[in-house]
């Protein structure tokens, strides 16, 4: 077990180093920050001084090793725009994303389990057909469109909800709804499929021959065995949300890591871009370990 965790950690370290390298050079392809941060008519001297101050006059490869050296000392660089530690900026935004992601995934998974199980319990019934239709629509609707229509309808039209920003509980409604829809749709389909095959398994016959109540058979035996694929898909979707729901956060002006990432790319705030990616990469690594541990907990046949 410990050895497994150690192995996973070392693999992840390698991929994180690869990711950091890639991001470092890619951000430098976006252009020269001095073009954004200095007035348009700034002199060549002023530009050179700006570059020197921020270490941008060095060759890229030298900058890279300086960056790596600093990383090792947990110095993640300064934000050009906010003039404070880039990591501080990233860590400030990240909880906002986490709250959103956690709520959306929890809501989507629990709703999908109930709806999917009930649909699978009576395949072909009216409920099943409605559930299939709704989930298909949810899984295929583009979230930016739903978000904009939602704003138009509920914020601009009826004036029930705020258009964007944070503050009150009402600010949560639209972003959560939009973020829940797609995972919910996908998960209903997964739950329904795995529950259908679980319900036709031989051990369900055994449970019926034992005289167990139907509810216990569905939720105790069939659902318990269906959890593994559900966890796989839900984990995958959660990874996507932790990554920052870039589009949804931007539309709703949500101060999360996705919006921060986009903003700092546009503003060529290199240190912040690098920090946001480092934070999400570590978070995804931890999330994946948690999912693996959950597997072992759910299925006694899986041991690391």
């Amino acid at each position, binding site marked *: 077990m410990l050895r497994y965790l150690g192995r996973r950690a070392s693999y992840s370290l390698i991929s994180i180093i690869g990711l950091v390298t890639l991001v470092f050079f890619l951000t430098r392809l976006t252009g020269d920050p001095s073009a954004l941060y200095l007035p348009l008519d700034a002199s060549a001297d002023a530009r050179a001084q700006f570059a020197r101050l921020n270490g941008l006059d060095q060759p890229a490869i030298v900058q890279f090793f300086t960056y790596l050296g600093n990383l090792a000392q947990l110095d993640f660089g300064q934000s050009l725009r906010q003039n404070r530690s880039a990591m501080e900026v990233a860590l400030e935004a990240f909880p906002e994303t986490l709250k959103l992601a956690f709520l959306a995934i929890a809501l989507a998974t629990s709703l999908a389990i109930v709806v999917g199980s009930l649909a699978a319990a009576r395949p072909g019934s009216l409920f099943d057909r409605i559930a299939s239709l709704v989930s298909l629509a949810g899984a295929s609707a583009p979230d930016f469109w739903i978000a904009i229509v939602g704003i138009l309808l509920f914020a601009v039209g009826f004036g029930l909800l705020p258009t964007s920003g944070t503050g009150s509980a009402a600010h949560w409604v639209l972003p959560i709804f939009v973020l829940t829809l797609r995972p919910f749709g996908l998960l209903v389909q997964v739950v329904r499929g795995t529950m259908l095959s679980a319900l036709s398994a031989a051990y369900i*016959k055994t449970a019926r021959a034992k*005289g167990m109540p139907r509810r216990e058979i569905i939720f105790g035996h069939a659902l318990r065995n269906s959890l593994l694929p559900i966890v796989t898909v839900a984990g995958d979707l959660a990874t996507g949300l932790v990554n920052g729901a870039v589009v949804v956060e931007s539309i709703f002006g949500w101060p999360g890591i996705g919006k921060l990432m986009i903003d700092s790319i546009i503003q060529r705030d290199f240190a912040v871009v690098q920090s946001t990616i480092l934070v999400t990469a570590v978070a995804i690594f931890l999330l994946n370990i948690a999912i693996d541990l959950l597997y072992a907990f759910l299925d006694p046949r899986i041991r690391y």
Partner: protein
Amino acid sequence: MSRIDDAGMPAPLLRVEGLTVDFLSDGDPVRAVDDVSFHVARGETLVILGESGSGKSVSTSTLMGLVDCPPGHIVSGRCLFDGQELARLDEDKRRALNGRRIAMIFQDPLASLNPVYTVGRQIEEVYRSHGEGDGDLRSRILDLMRRVGIPEPEQRIDHYPHQFSGGQRQRIMIAIAIALKPDILIADEPTTALDVSVQAQILDLLRDLQRETGMALIMITHDLEVAASMADRIIVMTGGKVVEAGPARDVFETPQHAYTRKLIAALPHGDAADAGHKRSRERANAVLLKVEGLGKDYVLSSGAFAGKSVFKAVEDVGFHLCKGETLGIVGESGSGKSSVARMLMRLNEPTSGKAIFAGQNIFDLKGKDLMAFRRRVQMVFQDPYGSMNPRMSVHSIISEPWQIHGDILPRARWRDRVVELLDLVGLKAEHEGRYIHQFSGGQRQRIAIARALASEPELIICDEAVSALDVSIQAQVIDLLADLRNRLGLSYIFITHDLPIVRHFADRILVMKQGRIVEENETTALFAAPIHDYTRTLLNAVPLPKWQTSKKIG
């Protein structure tokens, strides 16, 4: 107890009359069970004998409400159990009966146990579902596990199904079934998935439990020997209908219906049939294959703190095979017999040893030589459902070897040759364009044989090639193989767990146990005088008819 007949018995506990069940598929309803009647009394064993698709499982599943409606539909008939009509029970009444008064065990004990719960919990559920969750449940469960023969139940109670052997899993299933001392136990092919020696133990356990509790036992099987060893009375089913019913001995000794006679004739009868055997008529003394010191180790993935451990699947196996000879390799699951086959086919690489085939060591072959070798040795697998691509027509399946080995046959002659091969294995030319799912198990295995013959091999390795087939079909496929051998001069390595099957087919038999050869002899000699204890166990594991055993007792 001598002969049991209706007149001498008390009122039956369960009486099924004219049961008819349809299955609604997309098109017309299919009649799975057609006007079936039977009855069973306390302490009595009724065997329902039939081959796959005969409706034997459906008729008993109906009793427990395990047939889903839809697609199942009870058209007519009555199932009276102790005054209650079983076919039309509401869910609560059904639950009160299932597990408490009628219990069932199934064919595949691994699939029938929930993999994610401990066996203790799964036994406990029976008590809890019937309001007996109070008191010292754990000690009741331990007693039960002890009774069905699980060693060290104190530790085992918290283990998961995958940590038990096949026989033990079936014991756990039996424990679940008998927990509340049911009046009727329905056993649906309870030993089909188990090794012969384990089968005998499970049958003994069922007999003992029946004697103790006086429960009625309904046993469903396709295995005539199992049927004979358990039954007081037998009904024989085919095509959803009962074709024969009566006391076991009468049915076996003087079968009335043509189908029953055919079934019983297919049974390999010990000495009587020795004369009409299907062994090779002429055997050359030229050695085709010589295997020496063959071994296969598997390194088991180690746990966190455990060291590396090596599992010897095959150890120091050596034998030879002459041209035109049939060599039987017999052993139970895990004996290494299939590993040997797979290594000889170069599907798995051996850890040690060599195998000289026509002057070349098989394990040294590479590239072109290996391709040439593959042409000369073919395999027929156990599962004719899984070993052929369902999206390929029979024509493409059989002609595939010619596509791979370009030099066998020019494309212009493929059609004719496919038809020829189909004819050779007893199928028709018009089957060429069909797909695998349109054939029965026996027909599929014939197609597999035709595919093996397509590359004109010298040696065919049959790995449990008839084990998945019904008894009457098994005999036909063996006849076909024997006929082909005599006509084409083939050699066979025939791998099976079923000793009686090879008796009239193999010239020599190797008995394998735990990766080693424990006995090797000419077939007649091996059956007449088995030397090794294990061979004797295998031979004795074939169950004796009940009327013979009970005569011995008293």
